[in-house]
C-alpha cells in the first residue's frame, strides 16, 4: 500500500515521525530500529545558545498522559548542526528542525543559522515558548505575535516552515489563519496543554517549574478537534500530533485533516511504537476502505 505523502519540503515515505523533544537527535532510538524506516525525524528544539533547562523534577505521570517541563535544554543551534545532525545524515530520512526562542530575534537567528547546513528539510517553528519581551505570554497565544514571528522566520529560512500551534488558546483557528497569512508552509498541531500536578507529600507542585505540558493519549480528543477545525479554515497542510498510540489513532488524525502525524509520549512507553505504527498502518487503512494514506486525508469531513 502506498503510504507516501508529499508535503512542502518533505517527501515522506510514510506519515509517521517522532515528535520534537521526545526523540532527542535520534541516536538513542537508533539502538532499537533503523531510523530510515521513519517518515521523518523531528529533532529537539534548538535555541541560539546552549540551554540547561529547568531544575528537576521535570516530568510527572498523569492518567493516560504525562507532564513535562524540560525547559528547552539543548546544546544550541551551532553544536546541533556540527555534532548532532551528522549522525542523522547516515539515515535516509528527512530531518525537521524544531526551533525555539525567547524573542523574535532569537527565532530568526536560529532559523538563519540552519541555512548553513543542507541537512534539514524543513523548520518547525515552536511558538509555545514564553515571549520574554512580552512578559512571558506564549508567542502562540496572540495572532499578531504569532504572525510576526512566522513572517520573520520564513524570511530567515531557506526551507519550508511549519508552525507548531499551542492548544492553550480560546480560538485556535484565528491563530492558524494568522500564521498561514504570514507565510507558513504548514502547521503542526498540537503542542502540549498546560497542566499541573501537586505532590501531596511535599505539598507543592511536583514539577520544579510548577506547570508543565500535558501530553499523551489524554489530550488526543483536543488535538483531533483542533486539527478538524483548522483543516476547514486553512489551505496549508497539517501535521497532527497529540496522544497517538495506535494505527487507528493515526487514521483518526488523517480523517480529521492531518497529512502526516507525529508521535511523542508513546515512545517512552514503547520505544518501537513508530516502526510498529508504520507496519500496522496498511492493514488499518485497508480495514476502513482506504487504498493509500493520501486518500484518507480529510475524509472525516464528508459523511457519506
Amino acid at each position, binding site marked *: 500500500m502506498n503510504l507516501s505523502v508529499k508535503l512542502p519540503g518533505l517527501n515522506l515515505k510514510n506519515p509517521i515521525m517522532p515528535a520534537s523533544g521526545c526523540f532527542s537527535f535520534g541516536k538513542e532510538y537508533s539502538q532499537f530500529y533503523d531510523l530510515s524506516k521513519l517518515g521523518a525525524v523531528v529533532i529537539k528544539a534548538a535555541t541560539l545558545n546552549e540551554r540547561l533547562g529547568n531544575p528537576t523534577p521535570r516530568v510527572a505521570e498523569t492518567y493516560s498522559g504525562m507532564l*513535562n517541563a524540560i525547559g528547552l535544554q539543548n546544546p544550541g543551534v551551532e553544536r546541533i548542526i556540527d555534532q548532532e545532525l551528522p549522525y542523522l545524515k547516515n539515515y535516509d530520512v528527512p530531518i525537521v528542525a524544531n526551533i525555539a526562542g525567547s524573542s523574535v530575534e532569537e527565532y530568526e537567528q536560529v532559523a538563519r543559522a540552519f541555512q548553513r547546513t543542507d541537512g534539514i528539510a524543513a523548520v518547525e517553528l515552536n511558538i509555545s515558548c514564553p515571549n520574554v519581551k512580552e512578559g512571558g505570554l506564549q508567542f502562540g497565544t496572540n495572532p499578531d505575535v504569532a504572525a510576526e514571528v512566522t513572517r520573520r522566520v520564513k524570511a530567515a529560512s531557506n526551507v519550508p516552515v511549519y508552525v507548531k500551534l499551542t492548544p492553550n488558546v480560546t480560538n485556535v483557528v484565528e491563530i492558524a489563519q494568522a500564521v498561514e497569512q504570514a507565510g507558513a508552509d504548514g502547521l503542526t498541531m498540537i503542542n502540549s496543554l498546560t497542566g499541573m500536578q501537586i505532590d501531596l507529600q511535599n505539598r507543592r507542585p511536583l514539577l520544579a517549574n510548577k506547570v508543565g505540558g500535558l501530553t499523551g493519549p489524554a489530550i488526543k480528543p483536543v488535538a483531533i478537534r483542533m486539527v478538524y477545525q483548522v483543516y476547514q479554515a486553512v489551505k496549508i497542510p497539517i501535521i497532527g500530533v497529540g496522544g497517538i498510540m495506535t494505527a487507528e489513532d493515526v487514521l483518526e488524525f488523517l480523517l480529521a485533516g492531518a497529512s502526516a502525524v507525529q508521535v511523542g509520549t508513546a515512545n517512552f512507553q514503547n520505544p518501537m511504537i513508530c516502526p510498529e505504527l508504520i507496519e500496522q498502518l496498511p492493514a488499518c487503512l485497508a480495514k476502513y476502505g482506504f487504498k493509500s494514506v493520501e486518500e484518507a486525508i480529510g475524509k472525516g469531513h464528508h459523511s457519506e
Partner: protein
Amino acid sequence: MRQLIVPVLEIEEIAKATYQLDLEIEKSLLAQIKPGQFIHIRVNQGSEFMLRRPISVADIDLSLNKLTVIFKVFGKGTDVLTHLKTGELIDLLIPLGNGYPIESIEMEHALLVGGGVGVPPLYYLAKSLVEKGIKVTTVIGFQTKDEIFYEKEFATLGEVFVTTDDGSYGTKGYVTDVLQHEELNFDYYFSCGPAPMLKAVKKYLHYFPGYISLEERMGCGIGACYACVVKSADGKDQKKICTDGPVFNATEVMI
C-alpha cells in the same frame, strides 16, 4: 540495551510493602549486566501508565537464568506490579545506565552505604565485589524494623550494620550515625539511596573516593527526553542520570 518481554518466575513480599520480583532472562544477556544498572519496567499494557518504572538490578543468578529486582510500593504503578503472577509476561528495557565501575578500580575494602530502596543494587554490587576478592562492609538504613530486607544476605558477604530511623532495630538513626560511631576501614565507598542520605554520606565521607547512584523521575530512560538530569559539579553542564548515570563519581555531580 534491548526491549524484552519476559516471564515472571516469582514475586514475593519480603518486607513491609517491599517485593522481590524474579524474572527469567537468557544467560547471555544477564552476563553483560553490571551492578548499578537498572531496568525500565512497563507497568501494564494499557494507556493508563504512560511512563515506565526504573528499578535497579538487585541480583543475577546465571545458573537459573534469573534476574532479581526488589521494589517498594510507592504509588500506583508499583502497586499494579505487585499483582503480577508467576508466568505472566512483563515488558522491560534492559540493561540501562552505567553501573559501578568496579572493573577499573583498584581496592581492597569497599564500604557500601544504602538506604531504603537504595539497598537492592548494593546487593549485586557486594556479590560482585566479593567475587573479585574485595572485602565488603555494608551499612544499610531503613525507616523501621518491618521494612528491613536482605540483612542476612549481606551478612554472608561481610560485616553489616543496620539502622532504623525509629530505633526499632539495629542502630537508631541514620546510616551516617554508623559512619560516625564505628571505625570503618575502606578504600572506596559506594552509596545508593534517597537524595538527602546521599548528600549526608557524601559530606561525611568527602575525604574518600566514592561512587553514588542517583534517582530522578524519568521519561524515556534511554537519554532521549532530558527528564532525568543532574548538574555537573562545576554547574556548567547537565548529566543524564539514565545514560551518564545512575552511578556517578561523587565528585562529578552537584547534589
